């Protein structure tokens, strides 16, 4: 029956072309929306996911990475005293402004970390090293910041919070969900730059559990010992941050709506084409029924038509999306394409096309055999 379905599709080339175009349109849109949504999710937690350490301590009721509040630094020593803690580090994230070369200001996120350990610092350096931010007004800027602050190179100076700071390194892969560039400085410089943090406060503690100690147990112990703060495993804090940006801001809902609309558009296009094709062949299908074919035999022709449309449309969309990933990146967006996502989109495409065949199947089920005798 696959062969019959394929022949029917190949016979009416123009209609098949437009059906393919419709599926490609819908599936490419789904690919783009899912890819960008996942890209945004990854971006929102990229620092958490790439920072060593198993546990994040944040101010009470912090909802995400970008808007955490300061809490007393001395809790670091309380944390170090908890059984199962191998090490703990203070990290600051705060909002500031950078003066643009051509005037105006750009909002930036300043991340202060201990350059001696590198915990909380950039994880992939394009130029320079993380130790270069020690002992002075130095910062590392991510290469993606050019869109916001213009071209820069090592040795350039920029005014951050009215202080002249020298760029000593360029990192890779550090983007924030807010699109504000993340600047890495020493912990102490960040404390001075972000005045609302204060000299005796930090924004995060990052804790590493000792080998042989379950992270969940250490999290529990820290929760018990540290008052006035929240304690999360790295995975939980990453998920919390992702969910905040995607669902609490409505970004995710709008993406999901677009995916849903694309799904229904695709379903409509394929459904209409297959229904028209079924109606055109209704007498042939009826004849097969008269000659003893079961409904299942005929359904399989229709379902194969839907599956062929789905698979061909999916393949073209996949290639098209792979070719356009660089375009998205050039536009400053992160587009995620993973095999799990590709498989999920294939499944969605199959469901979209196969479910669209349901009207044709209903029509076949209700064929009036007497129609065949009407010339």
């Amino acid at each position, binding site marked *: 029956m696959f062969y019959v379905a394929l022949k029917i599709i190949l016979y009416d080339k123009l209609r098949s072309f437009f059906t393919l175009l419709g599926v490609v349109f819908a599936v490419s849109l789904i690919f783009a929306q899912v890819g960008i949504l996942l890209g945004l999710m990854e971006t929102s937690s990229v620092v958490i996911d790439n920072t060593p350490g198993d546990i994040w301590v944040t101010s009470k009721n912090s909802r995400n990475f970008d808007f955490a509040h300061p809490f007393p630094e001395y809790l670091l020593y309380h944390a170090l005293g908890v059984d199962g803690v191998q090490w703990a580090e203070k990290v600051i994230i705060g909002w500031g402004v950078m003066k643009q070369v051509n005037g105006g200001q750009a909002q930036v996120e300043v991340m202060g970390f201990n350059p001696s350990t590198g915990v909380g610092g950039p994880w992939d350096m394009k130029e320079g090293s993380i130790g270069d931010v020690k002992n002075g007004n130095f910062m590392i800027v991510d290469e993606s910041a050019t869109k916001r602050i213009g071209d820069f190179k090592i040795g350039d100076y920029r005014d951050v919070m009215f202080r002249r700071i020298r760029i000593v390194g360029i990192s890779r892969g550090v983007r924030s969900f807010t699109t504000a560039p993340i600047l890495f400085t020493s912990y102490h410089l960040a404390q001075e730059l972000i005045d609302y943090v204060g000299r005796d406060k930090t924004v995060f503690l990052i804790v590493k559990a000792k080998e042989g100690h379950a992270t969940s147990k250490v999290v529990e112990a820290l929760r018990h010992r540290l008052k006035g703060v929240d304690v999360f495993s790295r995975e939980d804090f990453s998920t919390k941050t992702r969910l905040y940006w995607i669902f609490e801001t409505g970004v995710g809902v709008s993406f999901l709506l677009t995916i849903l609309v694309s799904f229904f558009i695709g379903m409509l296009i394929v459904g209409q084409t297959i229904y028209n094709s079924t109606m055109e062949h209704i007498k042939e299908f*009826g004849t097969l029924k008269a000659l003893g074919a079961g409904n299942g035999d005929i359904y399989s022709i229709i379902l194969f038509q839907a599956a062929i449309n789905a698979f061909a449309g999916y393949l073209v969309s996949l290639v098209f999306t792979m070719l356009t990933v660089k375009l998205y990146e050039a536009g400053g967006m992160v587009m995620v394409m993973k095999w799990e996502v590709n498989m999920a989109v294939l499944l969605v495409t199959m469901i979209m096309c196969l479910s669209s065949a349901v009207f044709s199947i209903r029509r076949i089920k209700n064929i009036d055999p007497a129609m065949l005798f009407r010339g």
Partner: protein
Amino acid sequence: MPLPVVVKSLSKTYREGKLEVSAVAGVDLELYAGEIVGLFGPSGSGKTTLLSMLGCMLKPSGGEFSLFGNDVIAREEAALSALRKQYISFIFQAFNLFPALTAFENVMLVLKLKKVAPSLASKKARELLEVVGLKGRVDFLPRDLSGGQKQRVAIARALAADAPLILADEPTGNLDHENGRTVMEILKTLASEQGRCVVVATHDNRIDDLFDRLIHMEDGRIVSERRWDQ
């Protein structure tokens, strides 16, 4: 061996609004293996309805119907489908060939549905197309065949079903006289040489001589029945 068809007081009534219309009213008929029977009558006489019921495609409203010894009346759709698959084949005025499939593929399709092994099916499909005189046209699409050739493909397809009862509705209706006669001669050969029972509903009086038996219907009833040689 039971007779292909035995019907007694077969009837079919439709409701049209408040009216009850009788399409077939009390038909008695016996059909025999090896004969070709012509079902004549004006439009609305009930011959197509009778043919639909004989083909187990339309449920009778009343009467008795035995198909090769099987009681048809009491059966549900799934069981009727199984009876059709085993005993009946159809040829329609409009050919109803898949336009995307070649003559060979159209015939093969029925053999595939019958789960015939591919190599055997391929051989049989070619043989059947040869029987109907289309040896040189096996790979032609229906659009590249004449009306007569299309009907011959439809006959080959009907033969592929390998059914002992062939029901044909106006098989010459879309054909010129010469092609119509050729098609009817093929059907007559199927009856006389292969022992199949062939029933043809037609308006075409020019082919009377090719039938073993002529049945004339009017107003849902058989009004006359005679053998060609009588």
